């Protein structure tokens, strides 16, 4: 398909992932987590459990602690107290960002963050799990297996035709999909996706919903989103955050009639449609 992925020789080192033990059905545990910024409790005694293969939406007003929560899970912010476990055995608070990423947690930023001067293929190659040690980096070639993985992800995110184009000239929606594709190249168990449909057209939103739904099952997917229509179209389970803690959890239909939720989040009425 392209020069970049036409090499069949070369040796990509696969990094052995420590296996994540999720046999209790829970992939991610946050327990009694608290973070304070200059006296302000951004996260206040938060407990949250994400099931293996679950698609979970997290909603909440601005300042509810959604992004801070992602920062804690991915190692960017250290909580003052609490426990964060990936599966039964992996203590995420002992790991830094690259180690957590290699463990199998992928994070998509709110603003699409792809490497614009590189092609779509090169972006995916960059994100590929394994080969992140120095020896694997000193090569310009791809193995056949790596080539297949990239082709499979390209198809999944619908960018097969765009493989050789520079990421910088992609449309906004395509950049978002490319970034999701980059997460998939990491072979993550858990995907954290921050506002994937902000700025998307309705058609792009539908495709994104389809993409995220297709990922659940093989992966656990946590989506932070403001767009209520989008949340309704994808989520089985919704968690409402408010002032750094879980306000309510359940199906969106049930939450919509929860008076507490309506008051803090949907109270304005026009925010919810």
């Amino acid at each position, binding site marked *: 398909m392209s020069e970049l992925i036409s090499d069949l020789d070369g040796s990509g080192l696969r990094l052995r992932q420590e296996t994540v033990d999720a046999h209790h059905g829970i992939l991610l545990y946050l327990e009694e987590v608290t973070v304070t910024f200059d006296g302000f409790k951004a996260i206040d005694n938060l407990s949250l459990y994400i099931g293996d293969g679950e698609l979970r939406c997290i909603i909440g007003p601005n300042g509810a602690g959604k992004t801070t929560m992602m920062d804690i899970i991915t190692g960017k912010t250290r909580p003052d107290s609490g426990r964060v476990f990936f599966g039964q055995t992996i203590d995420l608070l002992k790991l830094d960002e690259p180690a957590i990423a290699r463990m199998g947690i992928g994070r998509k930023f709110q603003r699409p963050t792809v*490497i614009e001067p590189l092609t779509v293929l090169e972006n995916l190659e960059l994100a590929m799990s394994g080969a992140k040690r120095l020896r694997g980096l000193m090569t310009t070639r791809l193995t056949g297996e790596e080539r297949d993985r990239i082709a499979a992800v390209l198809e999944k995110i619908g960018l097969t035709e765009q493989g050789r184009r520079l990421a910088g000239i992609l449309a906004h929606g395509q950049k978002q999909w490319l970034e999701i594709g980059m997460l998939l190249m990491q072979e993550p168990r858990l995907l954290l996706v921050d506002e994937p449909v902000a700025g998307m057209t309705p058609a792009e939103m539908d495709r994104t919903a389809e993409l995220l739904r297709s990922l659940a099952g093989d992966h656990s997917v946590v989506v932070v989103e403001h767009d209520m229509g989008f949340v309704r179209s994808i989520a089985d389970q919704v968690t409402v955050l408010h002032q750094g803690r879980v306000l309510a959890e359940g199906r969106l239909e049930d939450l919509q009639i929860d008076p507490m939720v309506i008051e803090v989040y949907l109270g304005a009425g026009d925010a919810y449609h």
Partner: protein
Amino acid sequence: MLLPRWLLSDRAGLVLLAVLAVIGIGVPVLNLWVPPDHPLHLTAYTVTVLGKYLCYALLAVAIDLVWGYMGILSLGHAAFFALGGYCFGMYLMRQIGTRGVYGDPVLPDFMVFLNWQELPWYWHGFDMFWFAALMALVVPGLLAFVFGWFAFRSRVSGVYLSIITQALTYALMLAFFRNEMGFGGNNGLTDFKDVLGYSIHANETRIVLFILSVLALAGGYLLCRWLVSTRLGRVMVAIRDSEDRARFLGYRVEQVKTLIFTLSAILAGVAGALYVPQVGIINPGEFAPLNSIEAVIWVAVGGRGTLVGAVAGAVLVNYAKTWLTGALPEIWLFALGGLFVAVTLLLPRGLIGLIRRREATA
């Protein structure tokens, strides 16, 4: 073709290598075998000036590697250049032997003048060429590694890092100015006599040094070009454009930065080591903050993130400097400042960017 793909696709680089091959052969011929009264004869002075430009060009390539491809704006790279130069200068000092003014077989003149009785421990070994050549790589590399290790691990970046690199070279300048440091203080190291037994003033020696500079630049360029074409090169670009993205993809950003910064410092050290025997002196002025800033301007003028642009910028700006400081010495600094402003405003991608734009519209 026998050339690897990463080189074949680099048209500007092939042009550069061809030019280097032509001057690498042509300059010695025009100097050694064309009679001095012939109009095409190149004087030893011209050869030395060209060799100096090549050393500057290698320094510029080293800066472009970290700045253009990884976004680290080092304003202290001349420090690594100067350290490489001092290491080789120490060898040249030891080669003087009894021919110094005071005729001491071991101590360089400035140590006799300071009434030192014996050679400081850190001067031992520099009477051996291989050791000095090795140290010209190790000392800049080690400093860059230690500096990078602390700075990048603490996630110092952007303008703060630039300021610290500037402080680093300034601190080294002040230290090297002190006589007690044992590097000749203010005067630095000079009055060199010979290198590996050959007179440093002989035409043939100058030609060999010139050819070595051509080879060093070509080798440095090829190394950097290859590096940026590997996966590691793409990781560098990812770090430049979105450090967080790289980190959350699982890359140890600080390790990559430290590695490339160290490599870049070693290249700068090589450039400095070749520079000193050609110009015949190294003094603490080489650590002056302005030198590092000038080198960054060369890269900006040529076009950062292109490697070839760094070479073109270094040669052109230095040619202009040689000419201007001869014709109108007092306006050089204004011209340099004006050039930087003009390039930043009008040619953000430098001369190479201008050429590429012309080609794209043609």
